[in-house]
């Protein structure tokens, strides 16, 4: 539910700017355009991934369609030293953090489990089991405090992403308890896209989700998740609180999942197309573009350039995907442990010998599945 009283919105669905007595953005024209480019690119890459899945190149894809503003708005509010803990749909945040867009596709293709190095971009691994990452973010933020990296404008903050469905998990609620109790510098960013697969968010809570926070002793705020400026501003303020050592904040970005839950899902079974159409009128990119046009912050050439840049990136992503090699079979055994396990090494050796027993006369190993043996995959 979007609770009108406290709902933060800076851009109306038609792209008009509304003053707010607490939140505002202070962008240069270039920054306005950069945000637009992000929005368009993340949508375009997402569409490409969906297409790749339809063509059998990915096992599955979880589309962010409709949630670009929530992700780019919050993602761009992060400072380099901040750390994000996503669920599995934060491709837009990943883009803002600088993660190579191929990384999530590797996961959804099944060549790895999403094996990027979180330290490279301060963007943690995708987490599929609902709610778990919110405790990791909280613990990490407790560590930030321990390291003395809070208390000033250049302190570090942590943000964790999760959906409306995740609010029903014990883990998320415990994370609020810990974050509040230890005044951890963490922002809880809930993308209420109104569905957890088929369950409407009212199945998780009869009252707006941002209200959950107060009972745990932290501020909760509801923002228009389809308004990139409001998402930016609200997140920025919350991160600032965290950085300054003022503790956690809970943000509910009220948005809409315009695609099905994943490519395996058939959303027509549980929601009418009229609802989707209604939300298309609140499209986060169209409204932002209308604003940029009205304020003459960008011209037709910029829009055309952006589209073609997005197109280039999509083509590159496609090419990268098609070129992804399958990992070698023995990679199954790699990196179960940081330190060697004799027990596992023995299994690995037996398996290698088993594979070798299929080796053809040229000395090349091949298996029933016809994949060659080789070095470690990752």
């Amino acid at each position, binding site marked *: 539910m979007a609770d009108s009283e406290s709902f933060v919105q800076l851009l109306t669905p038609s792209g008009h700017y509304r003053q707010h007595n607490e939140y505002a953005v202070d962008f240069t024209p270039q920054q306005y355009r950069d945000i637009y480019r992000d929005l368009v690119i993340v949508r375009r890459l997402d569409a490409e991934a969906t297409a790749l899945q339809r063509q059998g190149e990915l*096992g*599955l894809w979880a589309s962010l369609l409709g949630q670009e503003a929530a992700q780019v708005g919050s993602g761009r509010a992060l400072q380099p030293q901040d750390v994000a803990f996503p669920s599995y749909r934060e491709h837009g945040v990943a883009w803002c953090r600088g993660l190579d867009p191929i990384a999530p596709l590797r*996961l*959804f*293709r*099944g*060549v*790895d*489990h*999403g094996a990027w190095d979180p330290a490279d971009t301060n963007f943690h691994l995708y987490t*599929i*089991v*609902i709610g778990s990452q919110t405790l990791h973010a909280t613990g990490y933020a407790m560590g930030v405090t321990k390291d003395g990296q809070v208390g000033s404008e250049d302190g570090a903050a942590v943000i964790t992403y999760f959906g409306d*469905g*995740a609010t*029903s*998990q*014990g*883990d998320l609620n415990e994370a609020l308890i810990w974050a509040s109790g230890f005044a951890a510098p963490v922002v809880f960013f809930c993308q209420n896209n109104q569905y*957890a*697969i*088929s*369950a409407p968010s009212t*199945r*998780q809570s009869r009252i707006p989700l941002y209200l959950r926070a107060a009972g745990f002793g932290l501020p909760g705020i509801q923002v228009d998740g389809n308004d990139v400026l409001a998402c930016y501003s609200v997140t920025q303020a919350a991160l600032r609180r965290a950085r300054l050592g003022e503790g956690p904040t809970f943000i509910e970005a009220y948005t809409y999942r315009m695609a099905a839950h994943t490519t*395996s*899902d058939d959303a027509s*079974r*549980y929601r009418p197309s009229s609802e989707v159409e209604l939300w298309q009128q609140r499209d986060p990119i169209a409204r932002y573009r209308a604003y940029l046009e009205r304020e003459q912050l960008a011209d037709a050439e910029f829009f055309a350039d952006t589209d073609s840049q997005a197109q280039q990136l999509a083509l590159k992503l496609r090419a990268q995907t098609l070129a992804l090699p*399958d*990992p070698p*079979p023995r*990679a*199954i*055994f790699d990196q*179960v442990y940081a330190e060697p*396990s004799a*027990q*596992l090494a023995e*299994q*690995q050796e037996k*398996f290698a010998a*088993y594979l070798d027993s299929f080796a053809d006369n040229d000395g090349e190993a091949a*298996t*029933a*599945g016809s*994949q060659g043996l080789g070095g470690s995959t990752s």
Partner: protein
Amino acid sequence: MTVMTLSKALNAGLRAAMEADARVLLMGEDIATLGGVFRVTDGLAKDFGEGRVIDTPLSEAGIVGTAIGLALRGYRPVCEIQFDGFVYPAYDQIVTQLAKMHYRSAGRVQLPVVIRIPFGGGIGAVEHHSESPEAYFAHTPGLKVVSCADASDAYVMIQQAIASDDPVIFFEPKRRYWDKAEVDQTQDLLDAAVTPLHAARIVRVGRDVTVVAYGPMVKTCLAAALSAADCNQELEVIDLRSLSPLDFEPVLSSVRKTGRLVVVHEAPRTVGLGAEICARVSEECFYHLEAPPLRVTGFDTPYPPARLEEHYLPDVERILTSVDIVMSHR
């Protein structure tokens, strides 16, 4: 006899159980409006109402915890856990409450709760969607644990599980959901001819090697037996069906006959069901064994990315390799 998929057979079994007993309730994520991500509960909400087919919050501890409460009130809840890897948030409720309350109360409280869990790999899924956690439950006194291998058993066993006055963890072999078989919907489940829930079954008779499996691996073992038959190896394939309690008699008498044992499962090897079968056979058939009992299992690694799963999962080739080894002992 109707030919139907395993998924449909479960659906038919659930329907029959709900028709037979108004206290049977289904609860789980996405099971009502959507009909479940595998469509096992498709159409049931429409026919029985959302009061008996309950779309729940995204909260597995809540599903099992409230199911316990509903059972205490006299209902017979059947919970769906969406995928194997999502049962752990409910693990505490299952292990400390569901499994132990009957014992705690010295028999005064019964918890006829069924927990349905699609399990195992082979469908090209992402992490946590292909796991085989059955050993955790089989090691937990107070729980009964079963798995069906085909549509015909699925139809019968789900009804038997619901009729059981004990909590039953019901593992569904998810990659066999779309496999078809003949299902007899006219049978009287109380008929003595119907295999009881906790009985193992010999699904192929053979004299050379006893091959023990359950759930998704039964089909693989039958395929291996077909293949072995070409080389004049006669495998006796046993579908355990019940993982707790284990029905050992058929296994022991088979091994007494064949002198050779191969156990097959997808779950990691160490401290899996295969360990129990091999240990028990070694203890009780010591002088009948002509070869060391072998296990063909998943490896002691987390379930790998989908593009590696064909190597992780036991297949006909790996089973036959072990069969050859036990056969080589003369």
